[in-house]
């Protein structure tokens, strides 16, 4: 059920107010009985999609567990090479962004167009910051040291023959996660563009904001598991 809250009747210029993409002018698709059922349906679909994402990452976590059991030494060494401070910084960045994106949904529900955009912008900045920290302080220096996945591994101080596998899982896991960060940021960027251009989201039309936010929370959630597994457990 979408809300009927309209706490901030933000004035909009006429050409936006009458635009078919403005949230007040949105109608349910022809095959839905009501707008609310369409909203519920979209959310159910999104949750199903998030289930598939969880299962996708479950494969990586499962591989992590198997190789941790097979090669505990390599895994212990591997996590020593990672600096927990960068991981923690990125965790904080993502947690803040999850909070702002939740705020963005609330702002859409309340028709607070100004803070909807501000919250989305902060979220996008956090996404960029995350990718920046990941590249600048982790991927690039580590690859320069030869801590690369699989056969590209040529780190001279390696102490365990199976360390290349650790780096394989590290890059695959964090790489696919980073890809999800970029996809999520693209979705939220699209939401931002549409709210800027048409005020497309409001109390009775915020499906896209909510679903993008759900996706973003999933990105955060996956990192919440990746961070301790990769950085903290020795």
């Amino acid at each position: 059920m979408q809300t009927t809250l309209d706490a901030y009747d933000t004035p909009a210029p006429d050409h936006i107010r009458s635009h078919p993409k403005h949230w007040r002018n949105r109608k349910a698709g022809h095959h839905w009985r009501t707008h609310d059922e369409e909203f519920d349906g979209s959310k159910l679909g999104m949750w199903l999609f998030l289930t598939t994402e969880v299962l996708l990452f479950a494969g990586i976590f499962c591989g992590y567990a198997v190789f941790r059991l097979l090669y505990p030494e390599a895994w212990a060494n591997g996590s020593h090479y990672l600096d927990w401070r960068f991981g923690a910084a990125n965790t904080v960045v993502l947690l803040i962004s999850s909070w702002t994106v939740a705020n963005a949904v609330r702002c859409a529900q309340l028709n607070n167009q100004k803070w909807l955009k501000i919250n989305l912008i902060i979220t996008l900045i956090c996404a960029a910051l995350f990718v920046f920290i990941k590249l600048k302080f982790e991927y690039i220096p580590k690859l320069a040291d030869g801590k690369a996945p699989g056969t590209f591994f040529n780190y001279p101080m390696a102490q365990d023959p199976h360390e290349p596998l650790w780096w394989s899982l590290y890059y695959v896991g964090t790489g696919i996660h980073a890809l999800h960060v970029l996809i999520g940021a693209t979705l939220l960027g699209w939401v931002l563009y549409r709210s800027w251009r048409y005020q497309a989201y409001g109390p009775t039309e915020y499906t896209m904001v909510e679903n993008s936010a759900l996706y973003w929370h999933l990105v955060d959630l996956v990192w919440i598991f990746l961070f301790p597994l990769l950085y903290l457990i020795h």
Partner: protein
Amino acid sequence: MSTIDATHTGPHGHHEGSYLDGPAGFWSRIAQWAVTVDHKKIGVMYLFAVLFMFFLGGVAALAVRLELLDPVRDVVQPDGTSVTTGYILQSIFGATDGVSGNEIYNRAFTLHGAIMVFMFIVPSIPASLGNFFLPIMLGAKDVAFPRLNLLSWYIYVFGSIFGVLSILMGGVDTGWTFYTPYSLTTDADHWRVVLMVLAAFILGFSSILTGMNFIVTVHKLRAPGMGWFDMPLFIWAIYATSIIQVLATPVIGITLLLLIFERIFRIGIFDPAMGGDPVLYQHFFWFYSHPVVYVMILPAMGIISELLAVHCRKHIFGYRAIAFSSLGIAAVSFLVWGHHMFTAMGELAAMLFSALTFLVAIPTAIKVFNWIATLYKGSIALNTPMLYTLAFLFLFSIGGLTGLPLGALATDLHLHDSYFVVAHFHYVMMGGTVIAFVGGIHHWWPKMFGRMYNEKVGMLGCVIVFIGFNVTFFTQFILGTQGMPRRYANYVDEFQLLHQISTVGSWLLLVGFLVHLFNFIHSLLAGPKAPPNPWGGLTLEWETESPPIEHNFHHEPIVKHGPYDFDTVVPPHCDPKDFPLPDKA
């Protein structure tokens, strides 16, 4: 139940003609279909796409059977030189690029497997008949997410193009399972293995989108009055299928992605030379690929439930038992993947997986018993759909029962990787899914295209397919128990007769399918117009016209009776004289 008035003009003034109507001009028609979000058009596009893939996979199957007509032998000529005979495919395609006869055979069976599994049988029933009839049977105007539906079709085509590209570049010889480490090293300087794996990866997205769409549609778009237990059993089957698609496909997604990384970056996770674990690959692979076996068979079971009830004119026996057994099969399907690797795990794990495998037999048997009980004292109409239904019951029972010795540890040790396995899963996949699919196409053909097909020709085709199928695959049970291993181009002389019988059977199958093809083309060009309800069905698709109007129904239907209440309801558009209700006195 709401009645249909064909002369009614729509309340919203939208298009009320057949969904097949379109603008004049060939290219505008193509353009209309290319951007359509109508589930019926997308279902038809899927139908033609998967049937085309069935044709490609079938050609590969015929090639495999052709190669096995003759064993490979070194024949010593009178002048003392030795000549190798029996590489039939090699002698057809030539051997200029240094590919041996065995390699050509390996590619032929890999193409057969990969095309049939990923591009034909997984999307076959849900994406074509499911797409077309799931919303109509629910009384909805469309699936929940029409645009995602179209996207899923394009993703399917896009993925299939990668697969076909890989074939054109020379094909893949890994087997459809892409087992590591062989799949990591074979054709190391070529991209075709990566392309084929990428094709399967991309096709997975299409499968997930279809599954999501159907689950939401079933939850949210049922017509007023239609509770969960008023849904046709076809919907229950598709719903259970969709759950598996959504939950299993992501696992193969990450597995195939890791395999692609292995090929390109040598990350080593599945490579024993680098400390990786090839058995982990097998676990991941079968965690998807065993549940997906039920993605293939569950919709077929749904079709059989519909066809049986309609063509017996009898309430289906044990409605709830059939509905819940679909969900039961879906649940158990996730717990049995280990039976593909009995020899790669400890004894206790193997025993557990064996016991869990036997569990599958329970809901499956419940279905078969209920179907047979439905036939009992039914008013059986022996037409093509019904013949296919009977063929399904017969062949699927053989396929299912021969699964039990494969699930038992002791017998599996003898039978695994033999032709017994090949025969078993072909009895289920082809004798089950393909037979039900073809039966379902006949059943719904008048509804989809508004034309009747020739019943006699259809029955003739069914009989030829049934005989050809048994000739092809029953021999393989015998070959398997005698020790013929799967995936070999060569064999000892004792097996030649059975192999030849099997190959002749594959030609009979070809003839049978050509008869159907001819029948369908003839029906489209010159078939008599189909009435709205030629079989006297009670599900909602028989309420609307044949073919359905663009928005399926003139008015939103209100459901007042169950889908199989043949003893209390005269079917829509039917004369009560033709469908007398049983005397209640």
